[in-house]
């Protein structure tokens, strides 16, 4: 949604695939540049309609499942199978560039709080989601290597901002009430990305000629220790004139380790629990270095964590979400 809104006024026509039929009229309302196709990214017929009459397009491929409902099968059907189908349709329609939205999960966790992933870091996918995103990246790389089309891979970490999913709104609400647990001492760092910063990165990935065939980490300026993430969210509430309550609950790091093992066990059996998955990741440092994007794309994050969280809070309130 953030990307689509950013594209209005800059493009003469934006063809988009949405899963929920209810979104079609909502997009049509924003701007008549949108040409909405309702369908599933796993459905070749929907993709044929999506690319019908389109040539030399810039394709942003953001369709993916992060937290499937119950079963891990969707990771591979949607994230890998969907990418394969969209890539294929993009190649056949002669697309100018394919910008692929990927994730930190292809690299897993950093060994220590001061380590950063670069674009040279090896694949070490975290669980089913990471594996599916790695496979998708490899499909994109293969298409690029064969000279089928220009591709750019953008890896985004934990995102927040307008139109954020409900889980992110719940995160803000629990942090406000002092109920979001730190797993371990909270010194593990996380890269995060404000949605508008990510959109800036995606637009640069689409337009900078030298980006063809490259991969970029796109995130806010610096990774932040988990305890400071929570503290910043609470500071954002205070800055917005809202009270915060509660303390800063901690869980032993062991809880995270156990959760990670349980998650792995569940996923091996094809099952998925979002709570256990998130708990397993909370102990980790998942931090990236955006130097390459700065250097090659001219990317510079415009919104910092505090301001981004303030805007997220305002967006939630303006859309009636309880915090």
């Amino acid at each position: 949604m953030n990307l689509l809104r950013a594209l209005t006024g800059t493009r003469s026509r934006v063809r988009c695939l949405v899963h929920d039929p209810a979104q079609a009229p909502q997009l049509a309302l924003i701007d008549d540049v949108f040409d909405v196709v309702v369908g599933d990214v796993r459905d070749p017929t929907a993709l044929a309609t999506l690319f019908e009459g389109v040539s030399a397009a810039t394709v942003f491929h953001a369709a993916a499942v992060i937290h499937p409902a119950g079963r891990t099968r969707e990771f591979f059907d949607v994230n890998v199978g969907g990418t394969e189908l969209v890539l294929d349709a993009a190649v056949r329609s002669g697309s100018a560039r394919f910008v692929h939205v990927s994730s930190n999960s292809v690299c897993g966790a950093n060994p220590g709080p001061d380590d950063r992933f670069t674009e040279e870091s090896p694949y070490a996918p975290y669980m089913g989601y990471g594996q599916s995103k790695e496979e998708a990246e490899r499909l994109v790389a293969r298409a690029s290597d064969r000279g089928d089309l220009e591709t750019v891979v953008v890896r985004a970490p934990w995102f927040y901002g307008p139109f954020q999913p409900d889980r992110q709104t719940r995160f803000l609400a629990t942090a406000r009430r002092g109920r979001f647990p730190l797993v371990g001492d909270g010194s593990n760092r996380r890269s995060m990305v404000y949605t508008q910063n990510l959109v800036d990165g995606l637009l640069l990935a689409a337009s900078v000629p030298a980006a063809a065939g490259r991969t970029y980490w796109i995130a806010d300026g610096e990774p932040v220790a988990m305890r400071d993430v929570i503290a910043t969210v609470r500071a954002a509430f205070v800055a917005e004139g809202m009270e915060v309550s509660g303390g800063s609950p901690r869980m032993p790091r062991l809880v995270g380790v156990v959760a990670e093992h349980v998650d792995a066990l569940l996923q091996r059996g094809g099952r998925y629990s979002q709570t256990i998955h998130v708990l397993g990741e909370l102990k980790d440092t998942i931090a990236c270095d955006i130097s390459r994007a700065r250097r090659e794309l001219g990317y510079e994050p415009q919104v910092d964590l505090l301001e981004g969280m303030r805007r997220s809070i305002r967006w939630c309130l303006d859309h009636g979400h309880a915090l």
Partner: protein
Amino acid sequence: MARTFLVTGGSGYFGGVLVDRCLERGDQVRILDVNAPSELRDGVDLVQGDVRDADTVRAACDGVDVVLHNIAQVPLARDRDLFWSVNVSGTAQVLVAARDAGVQKVVHTSSSAVYGIPEANPVTEQTKPRPLEAYGRAKLEAEALCADATRSGLDVTIIRPRTILGHGRLGIMSALYDFVAAGAPVYVLGSGDNRYQFVHADDLADACLRAADRAGPAAYNVGATEFGTMRETLEALVESAGTGSRVRSLPVGPARVAMRAASLIGAAPFAPYHWLLYSESLWFDTARARNELDWSPRLSNAQMIVESYEWYLGHRDGEATGSHHQSPVRLGLLGLLKRLP
């Protein structure tokens, strides 16, 4: 020159009032509604169908000058998916179709539920909406779509009414009237000294039509000018009814829990909107509507609740076939309260 008005929800309670007013003014009227009206007035066109269906809505907007959009799933419907799809997706369909059909003006009927329990009264158009339950959230999201539509060139005005009363408006009110008619005590939560404003359907229709005639997007909060507390309003009713009915207080906390529990098991006709807001003060400063639309509401809280009750007395044995607000609710466990001495 007569213009063509599309009244969405024209078979419902308030939509029906609007249809009659448009006809009185000599305008052409078309109704879009999932139900046919109990009585289709002469010369009124009916497009019967679902507001969430693009083709239906497009057909309904064809050749229309003004759209009065009233279709909503009200709190009584209690179905979250329906709330969202009808109130949000349905509104999006109407706005897109209206824009594409070159409609000159859309008047969107929103709700005071978007304000939740306000931090301070009176509530003005500058007050930040902070809805508390699913109905208010869906209505707020629909307002966000109106803002998108305005940016993309459609002239949309939002009207936020307080709780609507009038002859023929039943819904949750029928439970109250039933008690009063039987001479049973009626209840307020807590002391009942919360200032609670109603608006008469005729006054609201007048505001909508005045908004329809005024070019340029805007938002107006509308409610009665003369209103008092919930207890005063109910006392005016029981006094006028003369059935020996009295206003009594229930403790807020336990009453809310009971309302919630009874509604959870389907034993009483309540939604969160009711137990959260019945005992809270919410009243609009209607200066903007009065100044910009030259609108002035005729009826006070007391007058309209008495009128509404009298209509109920005359019609309570009739068959109920209409929307939530045209039908009496089923009392369920509330029937027990009624039998208390």
